[in-house]
């Protein structure tokens, strides 16, 4: 019985959350530092996982398995493949930056009762989310995954509803109502998705008799577990619906702009860069493995939806007047790419999609956090309230531009690699869809550059005239992200090497081969 590394990776932030929550109200700063240290510790563990993981080795590694609820055939089964490792790493990397970026976001304005400790709560909730996200990446038991897939909604819900931007353009009262509306919308959307998935989970149990991903996938593969076509499709739809809400896929996306708009920038990053990834990840791991046939059956429809998300999200991003909502719609467009890559059923597409999850996490974090710094300075999210910032805060503007360029996936920055892989992967099977999707890169340039032009260039607005440039803390947050973007853009091999074997596995699960190049095919 070796050291349960995966469990530790998830448990550490959980304990950290409890500890942080327990810090007395006066010791606000202590709580912040505690949270930061815990997140760094988690990062260390995640790195250990990365080190211990052998891309050439078994499909699931560092596995742990204990009986949990035999009554329901539920086991506590953990294991990571390349995709999971990459995403765990992403999560563990982003959380410290999120904490650091949100350093002052939860300092209480009015002093409620002595027992009212928003700061402690804020950081505790972030750590709780981290724990749940990590364990849902690790779970190889459907039920276990479902538990945390659902449970993570609660801390997210409080993060969205409980903490908003400082000075809000419409005043605190409306801000509160909008916040709680956004929070409720977030929760209800995802809860409905989750409950429908619950029905499917139960159905899966009735069909399969247990919840072990590995066993079921095994049985599906060697045909010992037969599913009626209709059953498989229904179950697939049940699962996919939940993931599509989480991802989010058009037309289930409308909760995201509200949530990201109302939440503070770090929380917005937490939503789109970390939590939503669970949805796309689950599509790869559960939908394709458990229901390969149904997945293939649904592919055309899903691709079309993904395509709509890409174009639609980008067009709406162009139409936004609110910086954060703009980023939100941009993310919707990007999630469209990810889902398209997953269901293109080519190794380029799926590797690209996985890579995309990582890169999108980093790039959105960079863009959104800088946007958050900007907003915190001016106290408004409206693009129109800015102008000429580049003149007074060149570093801020520069990092903002880099984040933007990453969002429009400029070659040389990380997102380009993944986006191009997804496009190629899709194109090689579905040329028309691939070509239309390519329009997305033009639109991406449009909304990013318009945003940059309106906020950063032009004559300096009076309100921003005395805006301070990035502070040290903020630089510490942004600089590493920028470095990561460039590094992964120039040398993504480390990630692809980890991901490729897992993708090969998934491809074999769905019995798909990459289409052959015309020239070879001719020979």
């Amino acid at each position, binding site marked *: 019985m070796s050291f349960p590394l995966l469990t530790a990776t998830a448990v550490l932030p959980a304990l950290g959350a409890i500890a942080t929550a327990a810090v007395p109200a006066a010791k606000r700063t202590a709580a912040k530092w505690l949270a930061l240290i815990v997140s760094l510790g988690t990062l260390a563990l995640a790195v250990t996982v990365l080190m211990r993981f052998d891309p050439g080795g078994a499909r699931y590694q560092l596995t742990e398995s204990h009986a949990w609820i035999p*009554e329901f055939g539920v086991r506590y089964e953990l294991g990571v493949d390349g995709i999971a490792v990459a995403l765990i790493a992403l999560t563990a990397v982003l959380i410290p930056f999120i904490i650091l970026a949100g350093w002052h976001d939860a300092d209480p304005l009015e002093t*409620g*009762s002595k027992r009212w400790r928003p700061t402690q709560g804020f950081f505790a909730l972030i750590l709780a989310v981290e724990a749940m996200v990590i364990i849902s990446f690790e779970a190889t038991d459907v039920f276990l995954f479902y538990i945390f897939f*659902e449970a993570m909604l609660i801390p997210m819900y409080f993060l969205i509803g409980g903490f908003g931007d400082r000075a809000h353009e419409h005043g605190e009262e409306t801000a509160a109502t909008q916040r*709680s509306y956004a929070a409720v919308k977030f929760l209800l959307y995802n*809860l409905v998705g989750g409950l429908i998935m619950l029905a499917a989970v139960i159905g899966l149990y*009735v069909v399969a008799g247990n919840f072990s991903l590995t066993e079921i996938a095994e049985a599906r593969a060697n045909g010992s577990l037969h599913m009626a076509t209709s059953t498989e499709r229904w179950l697939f739809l049940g699962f996919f619906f939940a993931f599509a809400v989480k991802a989010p896929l058009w037309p289930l996306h409308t909760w995201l702009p509200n949530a990201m708009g109302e939440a503070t920038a770090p929380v917005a990053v937490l939503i789109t860069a970390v939590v939503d990834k669970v949805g796309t990840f689950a599509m790869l791991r559960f939908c394709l493995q458990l229901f390969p046939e149904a997945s293939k059956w649904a592919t055309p429809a899903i691709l079309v939806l993904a395509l709509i998300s890409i174009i639609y999200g980008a067009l709406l991003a162009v139409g936004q007047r609110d910086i954060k909502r703009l980023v939100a719609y941009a993310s919707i467009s990007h999630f469209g790419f990810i889902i398209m890559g997953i269901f293109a059923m080519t190794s380029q597409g799926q590797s690209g999609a996985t890579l995309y999850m990582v890169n999108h996490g980093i790039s959105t974090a960079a863009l959104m956090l800088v946007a958050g710094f900007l907003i915190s300075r001016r106290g408004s999210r409206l693009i129109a309230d800015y102008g000429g910032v580049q003149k007074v805060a060149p570093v801020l503007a520069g990092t903002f531009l880099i984040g933007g360029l990453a969002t429009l996936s400029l070659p040389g920055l990380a997102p380009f690699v993944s986006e191009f892989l997804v496009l190629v992967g899709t194109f090689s099977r579905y040329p028309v869809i691939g070509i239309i999707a390519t329009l997305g890169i033009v639109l991406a340039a449009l909304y990013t550059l318009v945003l940059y032009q309106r906020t950063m260039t032009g004559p300096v607005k009076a309100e921003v005239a005395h805006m301070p440039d990035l502070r040290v803390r903020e630089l510490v947050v942004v600089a590493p992200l920028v470095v990561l973007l460039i590094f992964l853009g120039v040398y993504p091999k480390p990630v692809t090497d980890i991901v490729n074997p897992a993708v090969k596995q998934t491809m074999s699960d769905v019995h798909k081969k990459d289409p052959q190049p015309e020239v070879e095919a001719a020979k």
Partner: protein
Amino acid sequence: MSAPAVHSLWTMAADPIEKIQAPKIEYGQLSPTLIVIGAAILGVLIEAFVPRRSRYYVQVFVAIVALAASFAAVVGLAAGGYGTTKAGIAAMGAIAVDGPALFLQGTILLAGLLGVFTFAERRLDPAAHGKRVDSFAAQAASVPGSDSEKAAVKAGFTTTEVFPLLLFAIGGMLIFPAANDLLTLFIALEVFSLPLYLLCAVARRKRLISQEAAVKYFLLGAFASAFTLFGIALLYGYAGSVSYATIAQVVDGTVQNVSPALAGTMGNDALLLVGGAMVVMGLLFKVGAVPFHMWTPDVYQGAPTPVTGFMAAATKVAAFGALLRLLYVVLPGLRWDWRPVMWAVAIVTMLGGAIVAITQTDIKRLLAYSSIAHAGFILAGVIATSPDGVSSVLFYLGAYSFVTIGAFAVVTLVRDAGGEATHLSKWAGLGRRSPLVAAVFAVFLLAFAGIPLTSGFAGKFAVFKAAAESGAGAIVVIGVISSAIAAFFYIRVIVLMFFSQPRPEGPTVAVPSPLTMTAIGVGVAVTLVLGVAPQYFLDLAGQAGVFVR
């Protein structure tokens, strides 16, 4: 063991006999019930003989000891294998001592114990004339607002009768799910209903609606039990006996008609179906299933909150226990007749409860409707007609009762000048004023909503799983949808507590005595434990999943 029923004794009495053979009573196996009822009678005597100032303490003491002892007895019996291998019929066929009976009795006793704690709470209401008072009227008989009431308050009277009443109710509830013939069923029903009617009427604050609740509950309850009784009569007419075993045999056709004279009744399915339906209707009334639910909101709102909490938890447990036994032991042969009907009832109950709850503005009414929705979920497990179904229902009941008592206990804490502040608007910003209480209540709400890692989810999953396995996929889907609807109003309360600005004239949160704290604490603990590691209790319920015949 088929019933050599008491009744055969009576029939023999028709012809001359040498000596009366005394009925055989297994006191050991009946001890839980006997202890409680004995304590109740003792309570009455205490009311008669113990001086007023010390009654409260004596009553509380007696009640707690009795319930604890009775619970110990239940555990002892269960440990002695009476739940599984030695399960059998006791008291000449009147009472079954088997797994479900013991499991439910244990649950009821724990609920009752927590109930006693909340009943005995005397820190919440501001002291009247320097005397600590609980949430019951100083003198139930005196007219609200009258001089006699004022005098009673001044004298520091309290209605200590509530404790014996509670014990009687618990006693009835202990028998109810164990009753093995229809007569016992009816008697138990009345034994636990009548005290509850009274308990509803004796609130200290808001006495008018309290009395109104009592009237409604009483009249409708009596109405319902009349139906039950008529149903019993018809079943008796059908089978010539009220013993479950005999009826079951007649239903299965193992007992052939004795004489052609009885052709009209014996084995006349009309009697059976109508009778069965009417009895079931009586039980559905008690569990608060649509369309027999309408008393629930009013009574839950009007009754003193501790009573509501106890009633909401224990009554459901007892009634569902009885319903299970009736359907699984007496009418399994009729499965194909009653299952579709129960499907319909379950569906309308789930949806009805959830939908109407959306627009509620009073926390107690809200919880009432949520309890209706939950009745629907449990019914989904009932109609599974499989041992899994039984055990899932048992588990759900156990989990649910603790959440409910805890939730209502929290409600008693939030008070303003007019007593408990039950209007939702008053709960705005509670999370800021007293985060702990709000957090605890949030936990209960999330459990009601069936969020993972709470007992609510485990229970819901168990029930739906059983239903799905029995091929009731539709029920599962509808259940899922309605729990999505239900989630909406639980979340509304959480939003209110945490994301709304506190009202300046908002209510205060009273600091309770250890009694209520225990009740709430146990509630939270059970909720989380059953959510994270439900296996042990699932096993317990699983072993208890078989009825003796």
